[in-house]
Each structure stands twice: as structure tokens, then as C-alpha cells.
């Protein structure tokens, strides 16, 4: 397997403050990789570095083997990006926005028209092609951004908080689009602060906290490392969490517990992993 993305000891300082600190990770081609962390953990900065908008203070970042700091021009044609905020031109129509992007990526006229039709169909916006961006809903805008990011057939797609601010239906639709393009071979690198998104969508998850990578692996792996079974017990109004590799050890522990009420035994989840690693809840 080839490495689509490689970070080696990456660091970034803003005004003497480290927002990313010694970050190393690899994303394989064809993977959906998710960066999970609270707001301000350094996820967006990592994406800004990977997409050549910001230069790293130390370390290296490679996209398909190209160094983002030294070969930005090569890197730029390797990826597509869906930013967290709306970055479409609001005074242009959906189609014009896609066309602008296709032109910037030097697609021929024939290829451009065909590709735009294809992607409008993929994201279900064919009927809205000639609407101004200002006139369509939030979910549609996000889908238009996804279509735009895919125009030049990038092998890697970055999505920064792809479903933030979307309703449940739009959210599912975006997930389906992400899975769809991944099946067609696109490597997906996304950031999220939604645990369920990381758990349901990503093959592997990296937990990032205060600019540092705390753990990397599939949701199942991360859960197993912590313990498959979680036991919650309440004492003096606070909930205590303990983790066990299997049901037997967990049951034994529960039986030996004295004077505790509200004991719950359940499967551990990614949120447990997150809290144990960072000492805080993800959406705090």
C-alpha cells in the first residue's frame, strides 16, 4: 500500500504558542481517516499545512510523496478540499462555481462540461445548477462544495468538519457521498469533533488533543486497548468509569463492589477512549 499522507514530527507555532506539537502519522491510499478532537485541538491547522496554506514550523508533511513546503505546486493538484466554512462564491451560480474551479485546475472545455454534469448528478444538484449560491440551502451548499472539491479528480480529499451545522438528513447524505467517493478510490482525510461521525465513517481515527496525537487506530482497536467493557458506577454524585477486557472480569468487579448504586455495565465506545486519553469530554 502506498502512503497518501505522511506527517513526520510536524510542529506549528503561532506567536510562540505551539498549536501542533510533534505530530506524526501515516494515511494509506484508499483509507477514510478521521482526525477527532475538540475545537482548537489543532485539526484545522493540520489541514491548513497539508493544503499548503500555512508552512510548518518544524517537521515535514508529504502528500503522495510531495513535500507541502518544498513542492507546493505539485501538492496542489493532488488534493481537493471541503472547508469548514462556506467558501463558494455567493454571487455565482452552482455551475459557475464548479466551472471556475475546473478552469483553475486546467480542465479542457469538453472535460469540464462532462465532469460538471457528472458531479452535479453525484451530489444531486442537477436541478439547482443555475441557482445562485445565496439561494440554496445549507445542505446543498455543502454538497456543492463537495462536488467542487472533486472536479479535478483528486486522489486525496480533505474535509474539515464536513457535517458541522447540518441537519440529520443532510448529514447522512454527506456521509453517503464520502463513502461513495471512497469506494471509487479516493483517500479521505477528515476532521471532526463528532464522535459518532468518526466511529461510523472512518476506517482509522487519530485522536488529537492540544496539538498532540494521543492515539491512532480503528475505533475497535482503540476500544480494545482501553477495554471492551465499561462499568459506570455512581458515588457521591459523580460517575466513575472502569474498563475491562471482557465481560467475566467486569462482572467479577461489579460483584465485589460495595455500596455503590447505579452500576451500569456496557460496551465501551470511542467517547470512553477519548475521555480517558484527554481527560475531558469531546464536546466540552
Amino acid at each position: 500500500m502506498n502512503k497518501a499522507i505522511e506527517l513526520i514530527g510536524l510542529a506549528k507555532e503561532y506567536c510562540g504558542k505551539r498549536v501542533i506539537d510533534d505530530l506524526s502519522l501515516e494515511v494509506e491510499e484508499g483509507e477514510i481517516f478521521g482526525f477527532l478532537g475538540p475545537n482548537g485541538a489543532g485539526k484545522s491547522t493540520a489541514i491548513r499545512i497539508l493544503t499548503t496554506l500555512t508552512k510548518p514550523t518544524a517537521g515535514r508533511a508529504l502528500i503522495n510523496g510531495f513535500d507541502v513546503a518544498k513542492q507546493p505546486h505539485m501538492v496542489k493538484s493532488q488534493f481537493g478540499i471541503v472547508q469548514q466554512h462556506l467558501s463558494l462564491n455567493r454571487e455565482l451560480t452552482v455551475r459557475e462555481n464548479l466551472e471556475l474551479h475546473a478552469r483553475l485546475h486546467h480542465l479542457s472545455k469538453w472535460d469540464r462540461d462532462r465532469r460538471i454534469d457528472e458531479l452535479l448528478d453525484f451530489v444531486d444538484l442537477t436541478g439547482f445548477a443555475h441557482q445562485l449560491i445565496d439561494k440554496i440551502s445549507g445542505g446543498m451548499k455543502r454538497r456543492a462544495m463537495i462536488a467542487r472539491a472533486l472536479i479535478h479528480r483528486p486522489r486525496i480529499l480533505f474535509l474539515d468538519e464536513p457535517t458541522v451545522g447540518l441537519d440529520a438528513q443532510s448529514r447522512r447524505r454527506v456521509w453517503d457521498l464520502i463513502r461513495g467517493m471512497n469506494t471509487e478510490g479516493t483517500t479521505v482525510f477528515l476532521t471532526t469533533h463528532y464522535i459518532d461521525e468518526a466511529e461510523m465513517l472512518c476506517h482509522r481515527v487519530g485522536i488529537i488533543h492540544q496539538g498532540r496525537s494521543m492515539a491512532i487506530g480503528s475505533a475497535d482497536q482503540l476500544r480494545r486497548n482501553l477495554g471492551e467493557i465499561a462499568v459506570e458506577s455512581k458515588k457521591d454524585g459523580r460517575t466513575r468509569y472502569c474498563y475491562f477486557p471482557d465481560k467475566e472480569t467486569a462482572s467479577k468487579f461489579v460483584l465485589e463492589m460495595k455500596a455503590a448504586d447505579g452500576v451500569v455495565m456496557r460496551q465501551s465506545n470511542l467517547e470512553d477512549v477519548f475521555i480517558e486519553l484527554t481527560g475531558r469530554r469531546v464536546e466540552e
Partner: protein
Amino acid sequence: MSVNGTGYLEFVVPGIIALTAMTTSFNGAGTRLNTDRLFFRSFDECLMAPISSLSLLAGKAIIGVYRGLVSSIAFLLVAMLIAPGIHIGPLFVLSLLLTCLIFSFLGVLAALLASTHEDMATFSSLILLPMTFLGGTFFSLSQLPLALKMALYLLPLTHCSMCLRAAALGGSFPWWSLMGMAAFLLAFSLASMAVLKRLSV
């Protein structure tokens, strides 16, 4: 009333053209880019596209140039009805084009330096507004004391109005001012290039 032997109306029309070209080019390039950067936030998309920063800057500046040309030509058409003595030749076109280019690049530079919309407005009122009245648009520099004249030569608009006026009214053409315009263009374009490079740090 006449200035240097020409009717005041004929005298002032080239000045107003310089002024129109300045404001519309500056706003066309600058305000547009500022909105793209800070409000629409679509400028990042251009930065992430595989195009050179030179093309990017040139594109953003040419937006100002064509908007400036559209407005000044439209005004010129109206003005020629009132002041038919205006002559339009190659030197006039060249001066107009340079005027638009200078202020488009100044707009791009301002937009790249600005970190808020307010910065842009401050830039306009501190730099463009004084130039509107001092840049030789409504008066002739020839009667001014030397020190004041020298100070006004530091404003790009002074050279623009002088060139446009000379070309339109058929006086001796101030080639030194044309060189001055070229120098301002070079300075503003190089500065915006340098600022763009610094943005990605």
C-alpha cells in the same frame, strides 16, 4: 474662467477621468479581493489551486483594470458631449491604462494587508481621499510654490492627471510623469507580491 489657456471644463474633465479610474480600479480590485478574502473566504480556494502567485495577483488586478476602464470610458462618453475639445489618442489610452493598473495593484496591496473590512475603509480615507483633492485633478500645479509641487509629485494621481490632461488637451506630454507612473506600478506590484508570499507563513 480658463486655466493655462484652456476652458476650465476641458481642463477638469481629464482630472475627473483620472479620479474615476483611480476609485473604480482601487475598489474593483481591492474591495473585491478584500471581500473574497475576509467575507466570502473564497480566496483560499485560489491559493490552493495549482496556479502561480503571479497569475493570481495579475488576475485580481486586471479585475480592477477592466472595471476602471468601463467606468472611465462611460464617463468619458458623457463628458465628450459637454466638452468636445477632448482629444483621445494613443497616449491618452496608455495613460488611462497605466492609471487603472497602478490603482488596481494598490487596491490588491491594501486588500492583502488588511485584516478587517474596516482596515480597507481606513486605507481609502487616509490615502485615496486626500489624493482626490490634491492629485492635480481640479487645479494646475504650475502656479504652486516649488515645495508644495514637489510634495504633490509624491502622489501617483498627480502624474496620472498630468499625463491624461496633456494627452487630452494636446500640450507637451510630461514623459517624466509617465516614467513616474511606471515606477509606482512597479512598486505596488512588487509590494503586493511580497505581501502575498508572507501570507502563507
